Every structure is written in C-alpha cells, then in structure tokens.
C-alpha cells in the first residue's frame, strides 16, 4: 500500500471514529437523561451504545496505526498511549492520545462493571464527556485546511453533541419536579 492510500485511510477512519463516538456518546446521554427510554427502546438504545462503541474501536485502531505507519509525519508508537510525546503537532496529536487514554479507562471500567462499585464506574464514565471533547478538538484542528469537509464533520458532531448535552441538562422529569415542589414546602 502506498503512502497516499494510508494517508487517506487514516483521515477517513478518523472522521468515521468521531462520528461514531458522537453517536455513542449521544446514546449514552439519552440513557443517562431524565427522560430516558423505557422498555424495548431502552434495550435497543443500550445495545447500540455498547456495540457501536466496540465497532468504533476498529476504526480508531485503523486510524492510529495508519497515521503512524504512513510515516509522512513523525509521530512514534509511544504517542499512542503517552500524550504530548509526538514530535509532529505535539499538542494536537497529544489531545488524540489523551482521548485514547480516557477511552481505555472508560472501557476497562465498563468491562469490570459487575465487579466494581456502581459509583466508581459512574465516576469514570463521566470522563466520556472529556474524551468526546478532546476527540472533537483533535479532529477539528487536525482537519486539513484544503479539505473543509473533514472540519465540517467535526463541527457537525460538536453541534449535535452540544445539543444533546444541553438537552440532558435542561430536560426534567415529572418525578423530579414533583419531589422538588414538595420538598420546597414546610416540613420542619
């Protein structure tokens, strides 16, 4: 495979990873939100959340391996796990590395979910937001200026993710509203 093919493959899988990641995070946000899906739809949403995150790994791995194997720019295998060690674009590649590290933490705790306390798993799972954010920044800033499509995809993902997060913050639930309303009454 010649260098250009690897370069294209790296770009392509990177973009797909960001899209999939946004989708997975979005499904997670929907599940964690106060108007979470019930019954069968909850099973579908949860299944998609888990299986898409696994599928995303294939694209992410391809993205990383091809970017380094390409060799057009010096990155180095150490930069896969240790942030800010890449000679090329130390900061921006480092963000991608940071995302990988956070992803590893989230995945390991998720696989050990039945063995660790729920709140530990939850605390680590909150890092998904940071992971998604660094991935978006990495994707947007590394997107080449001569290919606006790549940047637009990252931008689109940022907008979609931002909307979902705002929904989660704003959305309320009758249960919560009624409890808050009753709590505000005189009880002592």
């Amino acid at each position, binding site marked *: 495979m010649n260098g250009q093919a690897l370069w294209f493959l790296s770009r392509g899988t990177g973009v797909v990873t960001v899209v999939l990641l946004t989708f997975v995070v979005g499904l997670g946000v929907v599940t964690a939100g106060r108007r979470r899906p019930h019954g069968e739809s909850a099973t579908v949403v949860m299944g998609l959340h888990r299986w898409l995150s696994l599928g995303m790994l294939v694209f992410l791995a391809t993205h990383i391996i091809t970017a380094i194997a390409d060799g057009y720019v010096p990155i180095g295998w150490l930069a896969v796990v240790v942030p800010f060690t890449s000679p090329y674009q130390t900061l921006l590649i480092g963000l991608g590395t940071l995302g990988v590290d956070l992803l590893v933490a989230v995945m390991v705790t998720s696989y050990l979910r039945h063995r660790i306390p729920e709140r530990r798993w939850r605390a680590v799972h909150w890092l998904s937001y940071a992971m998604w954010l660094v991935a978006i920044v990495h994707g947007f800033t590394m997107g080449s200026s001569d290919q606006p499509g790549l940047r637009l995809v990252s931008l689109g993902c940022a907008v979609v993710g931002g909307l979902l997060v705002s929904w989660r913050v704003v959305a309320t639930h009758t249960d919560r509203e009624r*409890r808050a309303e*009753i709590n505000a009454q005189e*009880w*002592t």
Partner: protein
Amino acid sequence: MTDILDAIVAAGLTGRGGAAFSTATKVKAAREHRATLIVNACDGEIGAAKDAWIVEHHLHELVEGAALVAPGRRPHVRYAAHRGSRTAAMLHAAGLHVLEAPHRYVSSEETALISLAHGGLGRPMTKRAPFIFGGRDSQGHRIAPTLVLNAETLWRISQIHRNGPDWFRSFGTAADPGPRLVAIGGHIVRPGVYESAAGVTVGELLDLAGGLRPEVTHVGVGGLGGVVLTAAQARTTIWDTAGMKAHGGSMGPGLITVWNPAECPLETTARLLDYAAGESAGQCGPCMFGLPALASDWRRLTESPRPEGAQALLRRVALLGRRGACAHPDGVARFATSALTTLEPEFAVHAVGACSARRSRHAQYA
C-alpha cells in the same frame, strides 16, 4: 399499687389515634426498650378536635398519664402539636416540652413525629420494624426507641389508673370497651367534642350535637381516612368496630363531619381528594403520583359519570393500598372507595345533568 400495665391489659384499651392498636402491647414494648414518649396532640385528621379539648380541659390528667407510661425520675416526654396552634400555645403555657410539627396532614403521623423529634423532616418513615424498638431512617441515621401515643389514649390511661379497669369497661361494648371522645363538626347545631362510647348509633352521637337536620344528605366519619355515609345510614349504623367495618371504615380517630347539604357531595369529595393529593410527602410513588391521579379520576367521573370511569377509579384505588411508608394512600383509597359506593345515586342524578344539592338548596330557601 397495681402495675399500670396490668390495668391497661385488663381494661383492653386501644389507641385512640385511629389505628386502635393494643395500647398494652405498645406500653410493654416501650418499657422493654426504654423508649421515650411522644404525646400526639396534633389533631391531624380533618375535623379532629379532641386532642385540643383534652389539652384544654384535662391537661393535668394527660401529664399524669404520660408519667405513668414513661416512668423515671425525669421522664422524657414530648408533646406534639401543630406549630402555631392553640394546643401548642396551651402546652407551652404549661411549661411542657412541645414538639412543634408543621401544619401538614402526614406530619402528625407517628413516624413523621419520630423523624421530627430526631431532627429530621416531619415526614413518615418506612417502618422496617416498629420504631418503639429503635431503628434507622432511610438515610441510615439512628432513631432511638420512641413510643407515640395519642393524647386521648394517655388521658384514658390516667383514668384507668384512678378508677380501675372495671370502671373503664363499664363504658362501651365488650369488643370496644371504654369511653371515647367524638369530635362532631360541619353542618350541625352545636359542633364540639363529646364524651361517648361504642354501641350507640352514629345518629345518636349526632344527637349530642343537636341532631341531624332534615336537609342533611351525607355524613363523613373518620375524616380523610374514613368513610362517607348517607344520612339514613348514619341513623342506623352502630358506632363500633363491627358496625363501621360494614361500611368499610373504623371508629378511627373519633370524628364525624356532617357535610354541607348546599354543596354537591361529589364536589365535597373532590375537594377532599385534591387536598389529600396535595398533602403527600412526595416519598412514595403510589402516593405522590397515585393520589393526584385519583383526584383527577374523581373529577373526570364527576364531569361525565360512566361505569368505565368508576372502574378506572377502582383500578387506581387498588394500586394504592399498603404501598406507602405510612397509611396515607390507604386512608385516601378507603375514603374514595366509600365515597364512590355511597354517592352512586348521586352519580346517577349527575348523569342526567342534575344535582341533589341544587334541589335541596332550593328547598332550603323555598
């Protein structure tokens, strides 16, 4: 001196706060666990007035009864009353330790008072075991062994102590012994608190307060957790456990409210159910969602009386019982069921666009 516990056992005294649980069992458990005492003088039920009456007229005997149950050189007794109420003021004036509860329906419930006394909110707690043994609240805070008795129960204990169990049993029936107070209110000549006993008819009780007026159509017995009777039923229903049970109720906390005949009884019920829904402590789903749903079911049924509507309401009622930390949803379910049964002819009248209250109002001013 005979032990007061033996005297209570011999007298067969039951709690006068509504649940009619054996007082002897509670006092015995309280002694074994060295429980502190809370005297419930809240008059928490709608239309209740007897706790205030006791505090006003028999405070000395009430304190004496409390001292009998919570012995010791310096017994720890708290007197619970609604904040800002006349009862609270009288208790304060007597120099007693007053536990001021918020003026809420569920805050005068036994475990809500215990929670309040332990620095918590005035909301009922889940009874994993009776709090007379001590225990923990839902957050895991320790709750010391606490006994809660209604003010009338303690007053009766002091009377049993003074006059003996035989005197006590000379009132009432064998199954429901002892004198008991009844608060009579609503559309009646002389509302007030009256001394009575089980075995008479509800109509005879109402005679104490001036009797049922001819225009009266319905009578509520036991408040929000009680039942509704027609005036005819009230005249014949025997005021004892069996007689009230035949109508799905109990003697409860001893109160009878004569409903205003100028107001549509369906509307009176709707108002009470709305109030009940608003009084949920928001802790248990069946209560915080079930009661507002029940109240709106009732309103819907009032607007368009149909058998399906009544069935929907009964299905809702079936979801409420024994599913709360306290018996608030149970009581409201009982009241709604009774109202639905007793007011069935009223629904029939409404189905053809009329209302018996309008008729009687015209009759009144004719």
